[in-house]
């Protein structure tokens, strides 16, 4: 790993931390998607908490101080926790989240009790057991990086190899079981991957907050990705970026790494949930506002068209009376039409421009098409397309729209 560290333009200790955080973020980001998409985010949380007694027990039994042994204990405890959760879920009438809650708190309490008990044992301080609660960025060794890299690479390889069946099972477990895709093995593999990611992250982020590294990258990436492949890549990249930023901040400020990394991750999720194009809260709100304005403009446009048919071009007041719309809405609608060049105000009377008249006709046609769809849509044939009420012609295609027009005219000769 030495050459890789030298490539990073940072002082040596920072480079080690950055590399470790990147490995952790990448692996946890990708593997976390398997839990989040299966709607089992909290399983990751329980496994991380369950790792704590494993670490302490490994220390008590072997007296070892080096992280490899302690993390092996963590992995064993995590797997025991996983088996227990599945057992409780299958064998009792407890719902899944209750099983998770029981295992999480039970194992973690055991870990804390053991930790307190061990505090006076010789060598406990050097082993740095407390570090596994909240994580610590500083003090990471090159040797630790090697373990992380091997575990991470193996995890990512497994995800890549089993990508297709994993996708099928995450989407629809019943199908995966019924069609003999090896659902049991896939679930086992997913759990093992989660445990591996947790083992990678324990030293840096700690047991309590590890779940954030699994959940946050996927949650943020899901806001911008609509397909699983890109989602996994984005989550991995986000995880790595979050990890590096948080770990470096923590190493420089001498604060525990876990909370700092999680703060960064939370910030990324918040931004994604608010601002992501297409799915973000802000984006949704803007679209709704734009829709409302467009609809108001269209309604007023049709009102003007109807009024001009009946007689003289209307005034704003007449429009409001005739349509029963609040005067303020009419004023805003007219204002928009005038701005867009679809209407003119001439001595207080409103008339449509040529362009506005064409728009009105298009809107009327669209409404007629929509009624025609409701009446005759079934006759169009087997195709699964369904019209968007705002743009019937565009969403159905010209051929189908023309047939609808034809059908509706045939109905009323």
């Amino acid at each position, binding site marked *: 790993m030495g050459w890789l560290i030298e490539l990073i333009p940072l002082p040596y200790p920072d480079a080690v931390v950055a590399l470790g955080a990147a490995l952790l973020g990448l692996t946890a980001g990708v593997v976390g998607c398997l839990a989040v998409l299966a709607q089992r985010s909290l399983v990751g949380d329980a496994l991380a908490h369950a790792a704590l007694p494993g670490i302490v027990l490994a220390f008590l039994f072997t007296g070892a101080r080096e992280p490899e042994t302690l993390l092996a204990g963590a992995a064993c405890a995590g797997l025991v926790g996983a088996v227990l959760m599945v057992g409780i879920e299958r064998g009792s009438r407890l719902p899944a989240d209750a099983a998770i809650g029981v295992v999480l708190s039970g194992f973690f309490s055991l870990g804390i009790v053991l930790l307190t008990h061990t505090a006076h044992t010789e060598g406990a301080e050097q082993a740095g057991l407390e570090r596994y609660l909240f994580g610590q960025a500083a003090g990471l060794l090159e040797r630790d990086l090697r373990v992380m890299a091997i575990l991470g690479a193996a995890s990512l390889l497994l995800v890549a190899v089993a990508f297709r069946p994993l996708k099928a099972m995450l989407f629809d477990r019943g*199908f995966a079981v019924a069609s003999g895709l090896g659902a049991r093995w896939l679930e086992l593999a997913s759990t093992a991957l989660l445990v591996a990611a947790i083992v990678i992250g324990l030293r840096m982020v700690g047991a309590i907050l590890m779940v954030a590294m699994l959940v946050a990258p996927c949650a943020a990436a899901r806001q911008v990705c609509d397909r699983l492949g890109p989602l996994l890549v984005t989550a991995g990249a986000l995880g790595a970026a979050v990890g590096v930023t948080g770990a470096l901040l923590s190493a420089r400020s001498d604060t525990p790494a876990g909370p700092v990394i999680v703060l960064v991750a939370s910030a990324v999720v918040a931004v994604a949930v608010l601002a992501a194009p297409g799915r973000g809260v802000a984006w949704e709100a803007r679209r709704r506002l734009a829709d409302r304005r467009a609809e108001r403009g269209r309604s007023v446009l049709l009102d003007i068209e109807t009024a001009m048919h009946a007689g003289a071009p209307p005034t704003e007041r007449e429009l409001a009376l005739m349509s029963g719309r609040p005067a303020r809405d009419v004023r805003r609608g007219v204002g928009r039409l005038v701005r867009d060049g679809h209407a003119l105000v001439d001595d207080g009377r409103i008339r449509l421009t040529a362009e506005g008249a064409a728009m009105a006709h298009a809107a009327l046609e669209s409404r007629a098409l929509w009624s025609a769809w409701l009446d005759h849509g079934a006759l169009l044939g087997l195709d699964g397309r369904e019209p968007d009420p705002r743009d019937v012609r565009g969403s159905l295609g010209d051929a189908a729209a023309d047939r609808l027009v034809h059908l509706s005219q045939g109905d009323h000769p």
Partner: protein
Amino acid sequence: MWDVSAGFPRAAISAIVGPNGSGKSTLLKAALGLVPVESGQVMLLGAPLREARRRVAYVPQREDVDWDFPVTVREVVEMGRYPLRGWVRRLRAEDREAVDEALERVGMAALAGRQIGRLSGGQRQRAFIGRALAQQPELLLLDEPFAGIDARTEEAILEVLSGVRDAGGSVILVHHDLTTVRRIADWALLMNVRTVAEGAPDAALTQEALDRAYGAGAGDAIVGASWAG
């Protein structure tokens, strides 16, 4: 559920009907090994499940699935080919052809690139059936395929299923609507925890059999009595 014994004819559309909670879906799931079976024997296409699995396709109820999942319609249909190729082998040209054909048959070719969350209920059902068709099964099992679906889509799906039957395939579906069974199915199993009647819909769904399955008139006492009887 106990004492359900039924044989379903080949090259036919068979419907499993019965009141809520009568075990219709459970029967289907038990046949596929999705729920544990205490006792009994399931033969699919004349073979035990293990051997027949590759020749059977299953369409679960739509609410069993997370529709916000990041996959496209085409990917969902493609999943029908996974069992044939295992975990790692690449999909071949014939797989792509089977997927294209399945998309075409359920009328979803134009929407193949769309994320499944942006589909209507009827379109989702079409995508699911497309996945089953891509498996090119000899036996197609569907759990409530017509629940919550408009008449237009129902007609389209029925046409697809008839096509499967006419090509020699067998279709078994769980159905809740007694008024349409005769139109949809060639054969019916009426059950309420146990088999009540089976046979051609007109012969099996007699008033007497329906009374036994659903309880004559209404009222828990009567239902209880017919259970005990």
